[in-house]
């Protein structure tokens, strides 16, 4: 019996847009406020209250649609999706049914092997969030409606994802994109991004293809949980298929919840009555028409997207894919790096300074590298000093830290702190002579004991650097020492 399978995953993603106010009213969106203090007649669903659309939310949705290579609908409308739940005050959610703001796009995701893959986007539409239900130990629930009416962008992909890691890559890439665009803080812990994968397997057994029933996984609050839940579902569905032979049929979709403590998916509900949301156009809201002029004004905010920037850093600057990825994780870092390179410094030097020192300092101060008080030009000057051998990499770290506190040039700081490297061959040669005299054993090892030569050489190097109080340029030391020993 031969058996192999393909993993098929599509994602439904809710992204909370970072507007100041709610989607249809002027209540402020602030995380962690006392319950029911950011509410008004509109978001409480009071009779007679009328919603008015937030322009910034429409623009953020269109901008994201453009970044996801979607066709932007020139005419959209708002629909009511009816269902009853205590966190939904109007008993309907305002959403977009048949005319989503954006459709037929794709997102390019980086894969672990350095290549990339296009995942098709079916649609992206705007809708409002519900409130928050807190289930207590007692026989009741407590409802906070501060979140009710928060603008969400729902993005639906085609089932083009074929492994747990691809699913995580897409999630992380989408997070990077919406942060670059500034349309969402995309903080997973605050629920700014919620992922609901639809998973099944196409199993080929003895030349015949079987499709397992689709499951939807909910309650995923981290990238890790997302990735692991897919891996779990794959194993569970495979086991189930082998045990029961159950295959996909209309209506046998089930919902699983992620249990983070036990790291497994747990059945929540199976084949229920099909939902009847009774969608119809919301008479309280007029349609939105997107003109060429408005669309191009929004498109001008697009800028270079993170993956394009990452690929450019590899192609044009010769960085490794890993370095490029670290630098483009945050837009502020990427832009700052790019600016420093354009000031005329070697990209890899700038990269090392930023990844080894800059990001650490920024993290300690809870800020970004562009806000450390160092201009791209000053950073380039520091990188050039390392490049020219005027200072060591270790000294560069010290100077970097000092630069965050003063406006002085790196050269001035190096001088004040006595960190300039000795490049004077004569001076270094004298030190080498002394070290050779004092360490005859190591010298003979370096010269004629192949087993110990490397170690002995390193020891001698260290002695010379030490004698120079760390100021001798290691490159010159190595060169001169080699020449001396070969003589």
């Amino acid at each position, binding site marked *: 019996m031969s058996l192999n399978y393909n993993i098929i995953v599509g994602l439904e993603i809710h992204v909370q847009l970072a507007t100041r106010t709610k989607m249809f009213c002027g209540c402020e969106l602030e995380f962690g406020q006392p319950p029911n203090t950011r509410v008004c007649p509109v978001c409480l669903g009071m009779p007679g209250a009328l919603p008015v659309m937030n*322009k910034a939310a429409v623009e953020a949705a269109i901008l994201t649609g453009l970044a996801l290579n979607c066709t932007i609908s020139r005419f959209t409308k708002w629909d009511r999706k009816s269902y009853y739940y*205590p966190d939904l005050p109007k008993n309907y959610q305002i959403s977009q049914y048949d005319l989503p703001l954006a459709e037929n796009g794709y997102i390019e995701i980086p894969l672990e092997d350095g290549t990339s893959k296009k995942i098709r986007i079916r649609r992206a539409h705007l809708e409002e969030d519900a409130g928050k239900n807190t289930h207590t130990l007692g026989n*009741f629930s407590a409802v906070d409606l501060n979140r009710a009416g928060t603008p969400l962008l729902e993005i639906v992909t085609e089932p083009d994802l074929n492994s747990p890691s691809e699913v995580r890559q897409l999630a992380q890439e989408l997070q990077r994109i919406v942060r670059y665009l500034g349309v969402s803080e995309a903080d997973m812990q605050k629920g700014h991004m919620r992922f609901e994968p639809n998973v099944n397997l196409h199993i080929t057994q003895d030349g015949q293809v079987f499709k397992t029933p689709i499951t939807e996984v909910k309650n995923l609050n981290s990238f890790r949980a997302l990735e692991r839940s897919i891996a779990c579902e794959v194993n569970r569905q495979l086991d189930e298929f082998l045990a029961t032979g159950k295959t996909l049929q209309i209506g046998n979709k089930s919902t699983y919840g992620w249990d983070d403590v036990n790291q497994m998916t747990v059945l929540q509900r199976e084949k229920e009555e099909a939902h009847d949301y009774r969608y119809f156009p919301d008479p309280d809201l007029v349609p939105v028409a997107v003109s060429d002029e408005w669309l191009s004004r929004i498109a001008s905010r697009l800028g270079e997207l993170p993956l394009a920037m990452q690929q450019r850093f590899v192609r044009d600057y010769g960085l490794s894919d890993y370095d490029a990825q670290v630098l483009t994780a945050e837009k502020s870092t990427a832009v700052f790096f790019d600016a420093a390179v354009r000031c005329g410094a070697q990209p890899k030097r700038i990269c090392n300074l930023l990844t080894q020192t800059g990001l650490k300092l920024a993290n300690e101060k809870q800020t970004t590298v562009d806000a450390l008080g160092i201009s791209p030009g000053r950073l380039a000057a520091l990188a050039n000093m390392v490049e020219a051998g005027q200072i060591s990499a270790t000294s560069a770290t010290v100077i970097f830290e000092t630069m965050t506190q003063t406006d002085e040039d790196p050269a001035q700081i190096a001088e004040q702190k006595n960190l300039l490297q000795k490049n004077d061959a004569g001076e270094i040669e004298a030190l080498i002579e002394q070290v050779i005299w004092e360490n005859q054993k190591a010298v003979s090892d370096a010269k004629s004991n192949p087993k110990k030569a490397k170690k002995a050489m390193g020891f001698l190097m260290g002695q010379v650097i030490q004698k120079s109080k760390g100021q001798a340029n290691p490159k010159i030391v190595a060169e001169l020492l080699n020449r001396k020993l070969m003589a």
Partner: protein
Amino acid sequence: MNHQIDRQLVERAALLSRLELSESEIAQFSTQLSAIVEYIEKINTLHTEHVEPLAHCLPVHNVLRADEPRGSLSNAEALANAPDTIDGYFKVPKILDDNSGA
């Protein structure tokens, strides 16, 4: 074509709307809703192949507001109509099945 609204459909509609109907109301709504559906069917006989679907009855679009905060209600005002509250929250019966579909 005759789409009579039978008892089963009325009961389903009542369930979706969370309405409790008496026997006589079920009978009454069956008749009334059947009449409404009959009327809609009459409208359905019109030829609309070349007519754009109407998204809104007003010839108006793009009524948008700037993303600027306006005051909210106080917690006391927000909860004023609530049948029951607890610590600033609306207090509601526990719902075990997440039937929200969201």
